[in-house]
């Protein structure tokens, strides 16, 4: 309930703050017109509410912002150097990063942030499995990809620590990904739903039991999080 009220209130207050920023003055007139306009905007341009987690850690938020600034400077200088250096040999990569968050907001902010940090642009997002597909510049060999993937996951980690839900934090702790959980769930459902049918053959059932063991705790916390 608290999260629901917060989810409606935060965008509203954000709009009011934006209005006052645009006028560059913090006066009663700006506040009142801002509240009126924010109400008008949120009624006429109705958007489905973003589910906020209801928690915000200011310290990790600050860490995220400072690190983002450092990364922007580094990325800009790096791209500038790649563009200007004498012998440029093009070599890029497109790779997938399975994320650990289910929140749309954290996913979007991760995507925005990593478009600004060294060498990556989001090409596609698979929202169901929370997987980002990134394009990276100047990747000389396939061995460089794990390092890039680790950098992206570190960005997501900072965001989850700053504003992720308890569910996401749990997944962060155990190191499970949403895509892995979904696959395990699907395999388990297939194995449990139709045990004798021809489709659930031996390798499918075997992998379901194997992956069900190591991610059993994760899916337990996940269904708990969905209920609350």
């Amino acid at each position, binding site marked *: 309930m608290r999260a629901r009220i917060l989810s409606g209130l935060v965008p509203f207050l954000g709009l009011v703050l934006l209005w006052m920023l645009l006028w560059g003055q913090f006066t009663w007139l700006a506040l009142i017109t801002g509240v009126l306009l924010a109400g008008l905007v949120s009624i006429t341009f109705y958007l489905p509410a973003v589910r906020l987690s209801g928690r915000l850690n200011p310290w990790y938020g600050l860490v995220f912002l400072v690190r983002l600034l450092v990364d922007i400077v580094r*990325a800009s200088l790096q791209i500038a150097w790649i563009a200007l250096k004498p012998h440029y040999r093009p070599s890029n990569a497109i790779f997938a990063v399975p994320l650990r968050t289910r929140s749309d907001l954290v996913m979007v902010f991760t995507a*925005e942030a990593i478009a600004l940090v060294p060498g990556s642009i989001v090409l596609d997002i698979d929202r169901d499995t929370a997987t980002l597909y990134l394009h990276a510049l100047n990747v000389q*060999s396939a061995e460089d990809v794990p390092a890039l993937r680790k950098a992206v996951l570190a960005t997501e980690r900072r965001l989850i620590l700053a504003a992720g839900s308890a569910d996401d934090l749990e997944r962060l702790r155990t190191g499970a990904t949403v895509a892995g959980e979904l696959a395990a769930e699907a395999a388990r459902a297939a194995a449990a739903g139709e045990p004798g049918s021809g489709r659930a053959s031996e390798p499918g059932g075997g992998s379901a039991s194997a992956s069900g063991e190591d991610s059993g705790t994760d899916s337990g916390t996940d269904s708990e999080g969905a209920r609350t």
Partner: protein
Amino acid sequence: MNPIDFSFGDDGFDLRDAVTAVLVLLAALMCFAAGVGLVRFPDVLSRLHAATKPQILGLIAIVADVAVTNLSVGTVTLAVAIIFFQGLTAPAAAHMTGRAAFRTDHFREDILVVDELTSRPDADRRS
């Protein structure tokens, strides 16, 4: 008169001028790098990198300089709003353009060392 006065020019070149000079030159260099990157990079996806990132730094440098040299509430809030919106819209625009480029095959596959999007398991290239 400023307390710190370098004054190594005939037109009163002080610390504020020095800061402005450094930041403006940095921004100009970033703009130049973006232009060169646009010309040199081989495909749309590479050019997107050149188009998105250097400008952010250039703009942050310039706007921070303007805000610092004319320090007031109105200037700083406006500067924050400018950087916030540029930082929010530039990646979104890059993402839209990149996705369109990928789906319409406007990229060179021969310079990719890894490609996990074309070969992903449920490879339905929704058009």
